[in-house]
């Protein structure tokens, strides 16, 4: 299941995820990738061990007696809300964190057409970065665009290719500033991706620029 993934997270993203300093949308794409990739999940857990080791070593802050009695009260009497039970049924395309954000399976995604057969669904996250699901019909190209920030793209179904490489389910592409690329979906299958940007995209050409308000990016 995980052996065919060729494009992974960077150490910088992994460390930021472990430390808890990333924007929500970036956390979402990382949680989705490590749901499909044990290599990166092990990396994340190793970096979390750094957090644990530091917690053991830094100077501690004195805690009041009331804090302990309050905690004891919580474990004895606290209503424990079903331990974050996941509700959505399994889905062959959406890993659990995306099902949580969609509020269901792929059938529940609220797609909106954005032209040329491409559909998207913006997922609600904090505003520092944007997460959206993209549906790209087989053989279709997403307009040539550059970035003023970082763009992360995780393939969930099908595959796409751009100037750099080919990306299939589980692969994540990390596109940085100044990188121009034109992702094209494989002809054999429609492609579904999760795309996260931490700054607006810059499209070349008039049509894509007009589309930008609709793409909400």
């Amino acid at each position, binding site marked *: 299941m995980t052996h065919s993934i060729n494009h992974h997270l960077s150490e*910088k993203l992994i460390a*930021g995820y472990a*430390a808890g300093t990333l924007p929500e949308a*970036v*956390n979402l794409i990382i949680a989705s990738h490590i749901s499909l990739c044990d290599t990166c999940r092990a990396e994340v857990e190793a970096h*979390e061990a750094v957090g644990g080791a530091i917690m053991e*070593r830094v100077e501690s802050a*004195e805690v009041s007696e009331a804090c302990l009695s309050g905690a*004891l009260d919580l474990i004895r009497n606290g209503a424990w809300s079903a331990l974050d039970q996941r509700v959505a049924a399994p889905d062959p395309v959406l890993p659990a964190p995306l099902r949580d954000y969609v509020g269901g399976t792929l059938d529940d995604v609220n797609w909106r057409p954005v032209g040329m057969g491409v559909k998207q669904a913006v997922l609600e996250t*904090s505003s520092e970065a944007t997460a959206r699901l993209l549906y790209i019909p087989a053989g279709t190209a997403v307009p040539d665009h550059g970035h003023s920030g970082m763009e992360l793209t995780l393939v969930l179904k099908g595959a796409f290719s751009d100037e750099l490489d080919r990306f299939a389910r589980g692969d994540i592409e990390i596109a940085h500033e100044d990188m121009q690329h034109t992702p094209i979906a494989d002809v054999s299958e429609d492609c579904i991706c999760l795309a996260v940007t931490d700054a607006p995209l810059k499209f070349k050409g008039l049509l894509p620029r007009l589309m930008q308000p609709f793409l909400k990016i």
Partner: protein
Amino acid sequence: MLGSSAPFDANDVTPVAAGVLSRGGEGMRTVGMKRVGLDTPEMTEDWVGCLVRIRDNRDEAAFVEVFEHFAPRVKAFLMRGGSDNALAEECVQEVMATVWHKSAMFDASRASVATWIFTIARNKKIDVLRKQRRPEPEDLPWGPEAEPDQADIIGLQQENRQLGEAIASLPEKQRALIEKAYFGDLSHSEIADETGLPLGTIKSRIRLALERLRHAMDNT
């Protein structure tokens, strides 16, 4: 060997060194000499055992032990993240109550107790201080049929101690930066592309634990 003053590279440590299994608690009571403001070498305490007592016996005495050691650390973490005293203590209570309620989720072949509690505290910080939802990765199956070997647990806990030592022996400047990344408010763009931390062995050990879980999942 663990507590010796000679610097070491955690990457060079053989997983489950022959000495680890046979060595008693006494021989391990030498770590943590460099730490500031702490009274006892707590890293040698049997926190995994406490978690098992909480999980299996709902043992409040074990909970109090864990609380007394970790609550002040969790509080420091939250206050470095910008919380005031009252909010920090409220969050500490909830973090520690989560430890109690989710003790069955703790996997000692993948994390030390300190690491596990750190992740709970980190999630609480994202939730309360950064006011964001925290996306959770897909759960891995975790039940009696996937119970890890004692050797795997000891090995992982050992490597966590060595990682702690390795961090302690980093040059002051580098260690301060890593502490700030995890405990302060360093943004992700300020984190170095390569942290240079010696995580090789711990990573492969966690990887093996994940494979064991996947295997257990395939067989059910």
